[in-house]
């Protein structure tokens, strides 16, 4: 499994559980889950690019 795939799967599972815990209806769960999933990806990519020039 590539590291990016691991990131995708991680984001998918965690966002699914967060959505199930935090929102009561299916519609809200879907919206919140997608938001959390995209947030995970966006933050990981942004932080990855910020860290790119670091030599350590």
């Amino acid at each position: 499994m590539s590291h990016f795939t691991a990131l995708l799967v991680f984001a998918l599972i965690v966002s699914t559980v967060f959505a199930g815990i935090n929102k009561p209806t299916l519609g809200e769960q879907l919206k919140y889950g997608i938001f959390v999933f995209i947030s995970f990806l966006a933050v990981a990519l942004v932080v990855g690019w910020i860290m790119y020039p670091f030599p350590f």
Partner: protein
Amino acid sequence: MADDEQTTAAIPIGAEPMRREPMGTTGAVAICTAGWLVPGLAHILLRRWARGVVFAVAILAMFWLGLEMEGRLYGAIPEQPLHTFAFIANAGTGLAYVLARVLGYGVGVLSSPNYDYGSTYLWVAGLLNYLVMLDAFDIARGRKE
């Protein structure tokens, strides 16, 4: 009447029946213990079938993937107190953790490129199950639907 309509509108995934009477603390703790042993079981016992199954699949899949990625399952080692945090996180998956340890899985292969990811998956699977347990406790006590 208005209260009934509001409650019905807040039904979670699928047509899941509501438990009207809040449980006592002992009952809620027993439900949470079941949920700790088998992820998702607490919600299933509370008749939140769909959510219980989704939680079980998600958490156990994460645990299994962590083992597949050759992550490490930590035990309680008094000489290494920092490992206690990792142990607490790992132990959140209950019976799956015990079974994996007994069967010799989760040794952790440091040379594997996925070792860190695998260990993180194993920690997060346990931590997510703690959150799911707390959610089940709130439902059992009537604080959430």
